[in-house]
């Protein structure tokens, strides 16, 4: 197939074929990451700008390594060092980056839909590195890549996502991607952390962790942010761990060989027990490694998508 998109904004808008294509392209890039010399010249002479309105060390570094392994130049802009604090609008910032002749903007933003708005206003590629509670497509893609690598396929696999579904872009992107590829997804959280209408995204809902783990091939454990202000509608930390924490005991009762995933950073002892995070079921560090291959694939594909578009204009 041909990749036609200049942007990657979310998985909701992608077809199953497009998601499959990113994952298979990422397999080729994973081989590159195993070489002695891990750098290829594919994006030589291109500039990738990491525009981060929210602090995120790991996603930013993963994108930076991915871009550098493609030989692109990388500029990091964080809110505290840019004109953002002086009140420049998102669109002005974006058009300025475009005028500086950058080729790809990788953006993290605390407002849902920010990447879509930016992409409408610039001609260069936009990759969503997380927008508000909306989507975090590359995280979901690397989760799916890891699942496919470990389980052989995604279709018909049972995946449970546990934690604050309501406020999680990782959950949303995973749900869209996994259901499109035919996985059976269950979300598990206290009722107050399940957003309305979530079952219309094609998932089952449970409030019991044992039920979520019983038949699951993999469990994706979301980071809990108890400091979040949601008008008091948040469970107590201790209570949450008792009811939903991923403990060794619960994993032992779950399906044998269940994969334990976590998008990081880990809150040890809050949503996941240390022994599980470091245990034999955990693929958490492999997720991190796979993130580079997936992001290389995404950066490469969107740069090609844009070239394609420019050619159409000629």
């Amino acid at each position, binding site marked *: 197939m041909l990749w036609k998109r200049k942007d990657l904004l979310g998985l*909701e808008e992608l077809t199953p074929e497009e998601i499959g294509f990113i994952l298979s392209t990422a397999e080729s890039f994973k081989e590159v990451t195993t070489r002695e010399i891990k750098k290829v010249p594919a994006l030589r002479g291109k500039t990738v700008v990491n525009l981060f309105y929210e602090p995120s060390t790991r996603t930013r570094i993963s994108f930076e390594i991915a871009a550098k392994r493609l030989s692109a130049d990388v500029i990091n802009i964080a809110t505290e060092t840019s004109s953002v604090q002086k009140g420049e*609008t*998102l*669109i002005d910032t974006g058009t300025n980056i475009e005028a500086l002749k950058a080729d790809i903007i990788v953006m993290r*933003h605390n*407002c*849902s*839909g*920010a990447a*879509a*708005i930016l992409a409408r*206003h610039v001609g260069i590629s936009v990759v969503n590195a997380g*927008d*508000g*509670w*909306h*989507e975090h497509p590359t995280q979901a893609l690397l989760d799916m890549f890891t699942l496919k690598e470990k389980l052989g396929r995604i279709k018909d696999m049972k995946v449970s996502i546990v934690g604050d579904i*309501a406020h999680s*872009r990782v959950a*949303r992107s995973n749900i869209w991607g996994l259901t499109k590829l035919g996985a059976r997804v269950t979300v598990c959280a206290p009722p107050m952390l399940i*957003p*309305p*209408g*979530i079952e*219309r*995204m094609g998932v089952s809902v449970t409030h019991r962790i044992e039920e979520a783990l019983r038949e699951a091939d993999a469990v994706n454990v979301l980071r809990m942010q108890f400091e979040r202000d949601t*008008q008091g509608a948040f469970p107590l930390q201790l209570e949450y761990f008792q009811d939903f924490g991923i403990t060794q005991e619960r994993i032992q009762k779950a399906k044998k060989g269940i994969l334990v995933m976590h998008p990081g950073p880990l809150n040890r002892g809050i949503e996941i027990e240390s022994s599980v995070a470091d245990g034999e079921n955990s693929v958490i560090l492999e997720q991190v490694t796979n993130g580079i291959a997936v992001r290389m694939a995404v950066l490469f594909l969107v740069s090609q998508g844009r070239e394609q578009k420019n050619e159409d204009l000629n």
Partner: protein
Amino acid sequence: MKILIKHPRVIDPVQALDGVRDILIEHGKIKKVAEGLQDEAARVIDASGCIALPGLVDMHVHLREPGREDKETIASGTRAALFGGVTSVLAMPNTAPAIDSVAHIRLLKERIRKTAAANVYICAAITKGRQGKELTPFAQLKAEGALAISDDGSSVDSTALMFEAFKSAKEHDLLVICHCQDSALSGSGVVNLGFTSTRTGLRGISSESEFRRVERDLGLAAEAGARVHIAHVSCRESVALIAAAKKKGVRVTAETAPHYFTLTEESVLGYDTNMKMNPPLRSAEDRQALRQALGDGTIDIIASDHAPHTENEKEIEFERAEFGVIGLQTELSLAINELLEPGFLDWTGLVQRISLAPARVLGLHKGTLGIGVDADIVIVDPRKDWVVTKESLVSKSKNSSFLGKRLPGTVAYTICNGVLAYENQREAPQHPKGGG
């Protein structure tokens, strides 16, 4: 100046008139409505194939003056009104400063006198500075010309104070227009709470935050015996509460805006900030309930909630963008498209909702084409479509939900107080200028 409108189909619910007549206008008033009228001295408008309606009375308009003249002015807003066939507007008091005192009304009246292109009536604030703390002097405001009071943009959260407001309004026979929103429930939401808020990752505003407050205000108004008007109804539960209150004899009227009977929450999926308004766009079921309520009269009135905002306030992240969209120029076309053509209303019903009922609620002798009435007339060509573009919108702000949309019903002429105030240059054939 005399104007003779020849051969339009004339709609006037008051006279139970729906037929081809000529209309003669003299000295700002309607002089005759009959067949075969002749007048040598009059300017003649050939309106064959067009429909003549009483000029639209839009009782929910934000003219932004004084204070935010970058968004809209009395001059630009009333010009947009005339382009949309609207000859009278009720200006909402959430300006800077808020219209909460005699002095502010006087200032506003002076500006209206100098710059308004259409009739502008004044709605004053319920509380000082719209802070929800202390009532404004209703008697003085009314004496100075305020036709209604409202803290539109927010609701008076204190039940006790709101009850005082209704009692005082009853005493002075002032209409209370209620923006119904329990902010404790709506929180920092920006779209309808439900699958749409889940899908977009945007914070939700529940229908409950609206209808709980509708329920409260209907109860308070009933107890005080005051006249209450529910602004921008967006959900089916509010419709049901209003219907029940009407049945019990509460003196309630209600309005909804064209975007609520035209669009649904799905429109926000692309994060278009011109789909962001308060209350938010709701579900398809809510939209259907609103259309039916307009059809059966549970909702009496169509009002635009014309809310201009500059590009700087709209071309930003969805969560940070201002609430509200403009609507003066599109309301008639949308009503034709969404209510008339699907059969929820006929022309007579449409005139009732968009001209007559708001005129009556505000106590204006308008919304009819009776002899001696102010000659506020819109002549619309139902055969001609038009496309909503930034260029075709004459409001200072261009934040329309309908940019790029083709709509039926082009306003050919708007006559305001007997003067030909707007003439669609592109569409109308050239007529010889008459005398008078």
